């Protein structure tokens, strides 16, 4: 807006704000046509714009606003009933006004758009209203007209004098509450006096300077010699507290209520609902929740997207709703609230909920899910599919959704600012999306970690807890499962990511990592293995240049000692390591409390897949460990398979050969000796043995009371687990059949447990 005159800039800023609230007002009015207060407010907005643009000689703008004003006057005076068509026309007029304003902002001209159509539409409504009888001024008009002196309205020639004065009068009443002061203050509104419009760039600069100040303070406090005099120490402490307060104050200045981005939503939802032939009521709660401006900007489109999703996918058509015993109009509720240092925004609709069958069907079609995976997916896993890129269940591409660009983008956007998205759905009843976002982006608190001589910062927002490794027996307690290192954290298997490997840092032969940072990566947790954890600090995030776009870092910061530290992008690290998107890992971590007791009447079973898709289940109580071993390490002693394992000779039993065949021929070719073998290490009566299995599927709690009798030798029973028939392995029988002397051998006391 370089050379734009101040008066135009002011006019634009004010008008754009007013138009946003007008969208909302029009939608409110549609629901509550008798609300004279709202009509007055809309009328005033249009009138102010018209008045000013007459003054600034914007003819087109004046034409449109004048026509709109006339229609609004009819509405106010009761000559006209508000219908959907009239609302739509008025909203269109608002759009035209917005368009012209945007043009004015660009080059101070109104542009060459043609707005006669909308003016004519408005005039047609005007004529229709005029055909009805001219009503005398309404009661309200009389009352306000009689109250005290009036401020002369702006010169707006085409408007009848009566309308102008009323508008000015009610406007002032509104602003000054009781309206008593109206006569004494001829200058202007009083509300604006305690607030000030500040250019965002000024605030950004201020924020940067405060950031620098924070760094300088850190530098000072770290370098203060221990024997400094009381004066110096005192000054440093004061500087410390003042900096803290200043930082807070500047952050507050950047805060805006979330309502600033919500004003557009009622209008947006209404338009969507009308075009989809649906009826939707919208409720907004917690509109005064404050958020940093940059955060607001970042989530704006995501919120619109969730609203669109709710209207387009969630809410059913009115008839369908009635048939299901719901009210005709669907409800979409948006609720914002502060929640422990973050802001939670919830978008809930009372529509059809997620149809997991259709999602799965569609996911299979698109190839997001492989057919063999499908039966294993739980309902919540299926629902998570909607966050996958390119997924949409809309039967066809509609105007609003179904373009395959969707919730994955929402998730990516929210995560890029350190937030998270969750979803809950109740089939046929509701869908709820919950976004959690940090209050601000500029200053974050981080944990500093060291890996092979490098120091990295991990945003504290995604840190769940810190774990120091090391057990009494000297081992670190890290196990391997499906080739992924895992750690048993209070009974859950936590997949681990070795940061040094992920970042390709050369091994310098130092001691192994001894700390885990447990991170919340979207809906599941994973652990980041680091050498050591130093400290936590408040830091100022500085962006990296675009030449560093491909690295898994969210930015960099300068620490108190002047050194630069990179800020890890936790999600990208997790994604690169494959722990964030792998559904199998999800099944194992998020839903499998391994060591807590199963519910009464249920047994915890390890599910194993045989080589031709047969399902086997093993009581987890027998299992001490899951391992993958090089097949090359497996040796044959006589007719027995053994492996050297933790300083012992471990007897291996191939489950496939140990169980009697149901078919004559061997089902699969012998496994590749270079491949890895999956071994379930079992403990029975104090003796260990390993079961060679084809694949480990999951760990589940199963009800075995309904189990039927055994199907073959070595099988205790058959039970339905996770929708499939599983043969429950009778471990002692299996062992005995392949190694009759097993239980006679003395018990060895090895290190393994």
């Amino acid at each position, binding site marked *: 807006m370089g050379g734009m005159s101040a008066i135009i800039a002011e006019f634009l800023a004010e008008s754009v704000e007013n138009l946003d609230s007008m969208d909302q007002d029009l939608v409110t009015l549609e629901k509550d046509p008798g609300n004279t207060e709202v009509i007055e407010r809309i009328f005033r907005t249009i009138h102010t714009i018209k008045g000013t643009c007459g003054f600034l000689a914007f003819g087109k703008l004046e034409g449109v606003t004048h026509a709109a004003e006339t229609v609004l006057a009819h509405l106010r005076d009761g000559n006209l009933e508000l219908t959907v068509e009239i609302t739509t026309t008025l909203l269109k007029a608002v759009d035209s006004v917005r368009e012209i304003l945007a043009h004015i902002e660009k080059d101070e001209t109104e542009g060459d758009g043609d707005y006669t159509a909308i003016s004519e539409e408005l005039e047609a409504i005007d004529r229709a209203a005029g055909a009805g009888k001219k009503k005398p001024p309404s009661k309200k008009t009389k009352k306000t007209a009689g109250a005290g002196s009036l401020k002369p309205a702006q010169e707006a020639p085409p408007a009848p004098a009566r309308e102008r004065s009323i508008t000015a009068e009610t406007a002032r009443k509104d602003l000054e509450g009781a309206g008593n002061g109206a006569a004494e203050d001829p200058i202007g509104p009083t509300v604006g006096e305690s607030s000030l419009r500040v250019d965002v760039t000024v605030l950004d600069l201020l924020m940067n300077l405060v950031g*620098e100040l924070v*760094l300088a303070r850190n530098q000072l406090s770290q370098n203060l010699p221990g024997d400094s005099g009381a004066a110096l120490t005192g000054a440093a402490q004061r500087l410390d507290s003042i900096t803290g307060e200043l930082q807070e104050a500047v952050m507050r200045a950047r805060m805006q209520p979330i309502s600033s981005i919500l004003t557009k939503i009622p209008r947006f939802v209404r338009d969507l609902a009308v075009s989809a032939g649906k009826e939707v009521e919208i409720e907004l709660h917690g509109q005064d929740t404050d958020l940093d401006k940059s955060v607001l900007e970042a989530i704006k489109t995501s919120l619109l997207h969730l609203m669109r999703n709710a209207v387009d996918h969630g809410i059913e058509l009115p008839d369908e709703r009635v048939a299901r015993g719901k009210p005709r109009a669907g409800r979409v509720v948006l609720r914002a609230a502060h929640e422990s240092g973050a802001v939670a925004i919830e978008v809930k609709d009372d529509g059809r909920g997620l149809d997991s069958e259709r999602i799965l069907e569609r996911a299979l079609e698109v190839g997001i899910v492989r057919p063999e995976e499908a039966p294993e997916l739980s309902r919540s896993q299926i629902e998570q599919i909607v966050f996958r890129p390119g997924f949409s269940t809309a039967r066809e591409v509609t105007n609003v959704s179904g373009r395959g660009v969707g919730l994955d983008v929402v998730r990516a956007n929210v995560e890029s600012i350190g937030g998270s998205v969750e979803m809950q759905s109740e089939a046929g009843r509701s869908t709820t999306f919950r976004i959690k976002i940090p209050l601000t982006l500029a200053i974050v608190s981080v944990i500093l970690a060291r890996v092979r001589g*490098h120091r990295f910062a991990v945003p504290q927002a995604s840190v769940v807890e810190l774990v120091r490794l090391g057990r009494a027996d000297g081992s670190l307690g890290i196990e391997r499962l499906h080739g992924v290192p895992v750690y048993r954290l209070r009974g859950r298997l936590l997949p681990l990511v070795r940061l040094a490997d992920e*970042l*390709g*840092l050369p091994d310098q032969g130092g001691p192994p990592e001894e700390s885990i940072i447990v991170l919340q990566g979207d809906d599941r947790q994973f652990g980041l293995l680091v050498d050591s954890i130093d400290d936590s600090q408040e830091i100022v995030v*500085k962006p*990296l*240049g*675009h*030449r*560093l*776009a*491909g*690295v*898994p*870092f969210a930015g*960099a910061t*300068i620490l108190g000692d*002047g*050194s*630069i*530290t*990179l800020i890890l992008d936790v999600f990208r690290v997790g994604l690169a390591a494959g722990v964030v998107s792998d559904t199998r890992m999800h099944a194992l971590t998020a839903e499998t409390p391994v060591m807590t007791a199963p519910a009464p009447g249920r047994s915890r079973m390890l599910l194993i897949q045989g080589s031709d898709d047969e399902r086997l289940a093993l009581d987890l109580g027998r299992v001490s460990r899951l391992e993958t071993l090089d097949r090359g390490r497996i040796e044959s002693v006589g007719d027995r398979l053994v492996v050297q394992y933790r300083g012992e000779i471990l007897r291996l039993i191939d489950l496939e050969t140990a169980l009697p065949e149901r078919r004559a021929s061997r089902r699969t070719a012998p496994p590749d000796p270079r491949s890895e073998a999956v071994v379930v290490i079992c403990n029975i009566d104090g003796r260990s043995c390993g079961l060679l299995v084809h694949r480990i599927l999951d760990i589940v709690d199963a009800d075995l009371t309904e189990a039927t009798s055994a199907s073959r030798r070595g099988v205790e029973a058959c039970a339905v687990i996770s929708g499939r028939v599983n043969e429950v392995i009778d471990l002692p029988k299996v062992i005995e059949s392949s190694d009759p002397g097993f239980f006679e051998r003395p018990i060895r006391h090895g290190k393994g447990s």
Partner: protein
Amino acid sequence: MNQRRQYCSLRVGDLLLGIDVSRIQEVLRDTSITPVPLAHPAIRGLINLRGQIVTAIDLRRRLGLAPSAAGSRFSTMVLGETGEALALVVDSVGDVVHVDSASFESPPDTLKGEARRMIDGAHKLERELLLILNLDVVTDLGRGSE
């Protein structure tokens, strides 16, 4: 039409290179550089320039030369007007050289591959050639490390 031109001279390996003086904001010696894992191989790391974070490109690696011995001294030339804060890590920075545009020649044939694209041409000095760097090509690393 002869014109005097000014280049800041610098050395990388055996090469004497020149950069238009107006493109150089300042020269730093032996700054501490924070490496960035997984970045483009030519990126040496990040420099803290009075609170501003500057991406440092290693000119040796960029030109495909053998890496310098560990612990050897280097200088850093901070570039101005690049849109984004950038610096070049070189072996050493020399004087500003005044040359006549008449002595300008196309790049010598001994230059090969990627390096040739980064050299606009050469000025014959008394004893050796001053190779003129094309900063736009040198600093264009494509997007990220992929």
